[in-house]
């Protein structure tokens, strides 16, 4: 049982929760995730990135968007309630330039929507390893931005905000400032986290410039330990399991179209489950 010790609503459908998980808080590194369950009898296992951790308090922070049945139920839990299960930290930690043998340089972090949350610990680690960090945050509109202050604290003036409708920052897509930076020639590495479609276009944008680009994949998962293969993707023609081989991969090698299709495998069932949960909460 993992108790919820704080909860905050960051936007219409984005929530932040701090959850007791002492061992995970100790062990986790930037880029790793957990799998949680709200109910062990009939609940589903969903992956969420560890957005932050406090080893002293023995807690981890999760930031999630309510997209379906389980995230909706999660958003209804309150401080004092407990999660039935939290397993982690899972996945390979991000390989941080400057600390992994590659010389520090200029890294551009591209976070789309809720993807900004998992980007936070990575950007922090990159900065700490001596890199110049530029952060591009994109969202459909202003109300969907999360963690703007935290990201500004890392990137300072190199924080670029961009929205589809121009309600905050520049109007347009994250790929536009990214292209300009690549064009200017001073980018050593790009890390992208966000909707798969965004990551696909980030990869297409950087490819002509030969800039190393890493994407953090968010496929459907069950166990998160390499046992089922449900999270598999094709990377450079080989099948990889995102939960153990990833979640980060060379974005230029990922078969994005296949991944996009795989994420829709259970869409009708998920939609029905979400409606069902929505109706339940309406009744209360």
């Amino acid at each position, binding site marked *: 049982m993992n108790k919820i010790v704080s909860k905050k609503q960051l936007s219409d459908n984005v929530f932040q929760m701090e959850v007791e998980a002492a061992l995970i808080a100790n*062990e986790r590194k930037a880029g790793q995730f957990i799998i949680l369950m709200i109910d062990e009898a009939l609940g*589903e296992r969903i992956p969420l990135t560890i957005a932050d951790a406090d080893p002293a308090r023995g807690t981890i922070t999760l930031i999630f968007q309510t997209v379906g049945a389980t995230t909706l139920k999660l958003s209804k839990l309150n401080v004092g309630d407990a999660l039935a299960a*939290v*397993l982690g930290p899972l996945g390979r930690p991000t390989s941080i330039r400057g600390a992994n043998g590659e010389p520090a340089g200029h890294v551009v972090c591209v976070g789309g929507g809720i993807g900004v949350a998992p980007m936070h610990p990575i950007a922090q680690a990159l900065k700490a390893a001596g890199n110049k960090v530029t952060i591009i945050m994109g969202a459909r509109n202003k109300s969907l931005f999360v963690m703007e202050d935290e990201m500004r604290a890392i990137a300072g003036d190199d924080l670029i905000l961009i929205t589809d409708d121009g309600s905050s920052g520049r109007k347009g897509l994250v790929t536009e400032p990214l292209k300009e930076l690549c064009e200017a020639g001073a980018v050593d590495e790009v890390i992208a986290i966000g909707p798969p479609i965004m990551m696909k276009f980030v990869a297409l944008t950087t490819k002509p410039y030969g800039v190393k680009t890493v994407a953090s994949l968010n496929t459907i998962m069950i166990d998160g330990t390499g046992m*089922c293969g*449900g999270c598999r*993707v094709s990377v450079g023609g080989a*099948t990889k399991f995102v939960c153990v081989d990833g979640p980060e991969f060379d974005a230029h090698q990922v078969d994005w179209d296949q991944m996009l299709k795989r994420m*829709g*495998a259970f869409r009708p069932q998920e939609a029905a489950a979400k409606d069902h949960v929505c109706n339940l909460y309406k009744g209360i």
Partner: protein
Amino acid sequence: MTPKERMAIAPQAMPEQDAQVRAHNMNEVALGYTAEMAKTEASRCLQCPTKPCMQGCPVAIDIPGFLAAAAEGDFATALKIIRKTSLLPAVCGRVCPQEKQCQKFCTMGKVLKDVDKAVAIGRVERFCADLARESGTEEPVTCAPKTGRKVAVIGSGPASITCAADCAKAGHDVTMFEAFHKCGGVLVYGIPEFRLPKSIVRHEVEGLKKLGVTIETNYCVGRTRKVADLIRKDGFDAVFVGTGAGLPKFMDIPGENLNGVFSANEYLTRANLMKAYLEGEADTPFWHGKKVAVLGGGNVAMDASRMALRLGAEKVYLIYRRSLEEMPARKEEVHHAKEEGVDFHLLENAKRILGDDKGFVNGLECLRYELGAPDASGRRSPVPIAGSEFTLDVDTVVVAVGNASNPLIPATTEGLEVNRRGNIVVDPETNMTSIPGVFAGGDIVLGAATVILAMGEGRRAAAGINAYLMKDRS
């Protein structure tokens, strides 16, 4: 009774749910003997002085001994004899491939020239265990005085359950770490309810708790904490690694990443562990396959194809590239699958999975095979027949061609020796690995094997752990 009289007793058939009915429910297929049937079946045993059946039993249960007690109706004594060497009789009685083990060597089967007419050792074993469990008359187990030594057991499959129980009985403080939210390993996530009721596995896990074993679920060793830290930081004096063979193999054919293609592990985990078949109640989504092809010929393939029927498939094809003879699955499961309507496509193999433009499976291209010369394993190897391609109309493909060993612990444990296949290398007598104090057993050592072998390994490792922990005490 004279041997002649014993031979005249008809083999007792196992009462079963009707095939047409059970193909649509999750309840156990084989209903179990009555006491009368168990007694009668046990009476068929000839009490051979050479005990040939015991040679076939991987843990050398005193088979004629327990059958003699059962024939007298003394099932409690029978169970006591079984328990001397086997910890999980209710499980093994159900899932052991008896026709390849004890019953293969049984004199009765030899005389009647039919292994199916051997004494039904497994069914009597199951009866003895079920009776004690259901009537609450199992003998309480006592533990030796506390030794003050701490043992970590990683995983909760049959190897780990056995090792944990034996270590607890020896007086050590045992903690079991399991990555999933439920204990039992393959017994809960792989083998379906209709073949092994989960209440039995729960009962065994409860038994561990009664022995004082602490159970930590949702704890992935290697990630939550490394093996070395369990020893260095948490003070465990010995560690047992029983993490199984949980890495699904795929066929490496085109189309394997289409929607509607599952590893058997995923397909069965969704249904068994996550209870996806309780649609509307369970949150894990349910895949509505109407025409399902299952690739493989082992127990896993049988379970997946029979599960597909129960999940509402109208047509289930089992595609296996050799013939019935070579099928590694338990004979009873093959028989049950056929009765339930699984369509066996033997000497055929999948070549390519076809999909629509949205990425969903809509067909399976297969190739016909014939049997050629025997290969290294002694089995006649299947040879494809050129130009024999044909397409099956399916919307779901389940790949059940085996499991490799899970690399997580070897990858996160420095100095742990593994072989070419990724299996942990152990001393055959103590099951100790290349790291002193770290032991391993079950599928992670043997490769995908059987419940009884995993249990035997867990037991041997526990003995090894005892010797290791107490060597400076005697």
